[in-house]
């Protein structure tokens, strides 16, 4: 296997074929929430709705807990997990506030001031212990 040249970017999951394979059922569940009738069914009984998707116990737990970062670590992709967030009334920007741990207000403030700067955010080595 060739080495992945994008694995040293901090705070980032690159959704490649390996992640796509791992997250397949999770992502298929998320995209099902695009349709109102499925949202209604899911919101009426989350556990029962999730039974239809053979995801791992860990993925299922992350869905139920709305653990947004763990969903990504377990093969979820942001365009899919954002459908679950939309179901909960959370838009892309507020979701980013949650995933970064900054909170909605601080995150919005950062964006208004030009966003997260690139300097210091290119390589994992620049982030020290954190990934």
């Amino acid at each position, binding site marked *: 296997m060739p080495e992945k*040249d*994008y694995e040293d*970017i*901090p*705070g*980032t*999951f*690159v*959704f*490649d*074929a390996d992640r*796509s394979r791992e*997250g*397949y059922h999770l*992502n*298929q569940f*998320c*995209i099902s*929430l*695009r*349709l*109102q009738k499925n*949202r209604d069914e899911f919101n009426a009984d989350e556990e029962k709705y999730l039974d239809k998707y053979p995801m791992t116990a860990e993925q299922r737990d992350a869905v139920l807990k709305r653990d947004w*970062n763990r969903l*990504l670590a377990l093969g979820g*992709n*942001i*365009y*899919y997990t*954002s*459908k679950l967030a*939309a*179901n909960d009334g959370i*838009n*892309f*920007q507020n*979701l*980013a506030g949650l*995933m*970064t*741990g900054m909170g909605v207000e601080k*995150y919005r403030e*950062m*964006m*208004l001031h*030009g*966003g*997260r*700067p*690139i300097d210091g*955010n*290119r390589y994992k080595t620049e982030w020290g212990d*954190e*990934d």
Partner: protein
Amino acid sequence: MARITAGVGCSHVPAIGVAMDTKITDQPYWKPVFDGFEFSRKWMKENKPDVIFLVYNDHCTAFDASCIPTFALGAAAEFQPADEGWGPRPVPVVKNHQKLASHIAQSLILDEFDMTIMNEMEVDHGLTVPLSVMFGEVSPEDEWPCLVIPLAVNVVQYPAPTGNRCYQLGKAVRRAIESYPVDLNVMVFGTGGMSHQLQYKRAGLINREWDQRFLDLLTEDPVFASQIPHVEYLREAGSEGVEMVMWHVMRGALDDEVKEVHRHYHVPASNTAVGHIILENVAA
């Protein structure tokens, strides 16, 4: 003969569509975003295309994870705006130039680009937001001012097609369009970007200098720009910034030398740097 007169590069941030749909474009947050499209709307009226060949990506809306075509060409008669989880956008159905689309599909495949052909497809904000910003508000009962041929590119699952492949595809699209024996004014749109990351702890990344350099290169040295490797987009412009490969299809469809008639850049729209450029074929 059909001819390509101009190319448009343009972000397709969903929140821009929401701002237009909820009529808050005059708010201080949004005004600078929309001010930069005032020229463009006038320019669109003056240069009225018959057809837009619109390169965009689907954001896990029409395509789920079960099938991931790298290049999918819209051949259906029309395309409904999709429900992306908060109801479909209140904009008109998108109508195709179906004959030209079939001609392009056939030409591209014989030109060795192995296209997927879509005879049924809904379209998401990736396609409708560029139309909205360039044409202004159009009510769902009205019609878009021109026909649209969609080309959906996979940029969600890594790897997206390379910048070079996109640039070469643009050249093949031009050969296809210019061999269509009806006089049509065709514009090519490349959409997505600019720098943005929507996910995980580095979300919110913006790289103004990199974006500006990308726009400069796109105009002046498109071949060099087409050689930018994926890892550079991911690292420098954010994981979702890789959408910018789609701009190379647009650039490839234009002359080597073009006239940049308009540029707009603003941070932020939601999580994203908004970029926009209009390039004219001088000889056209």
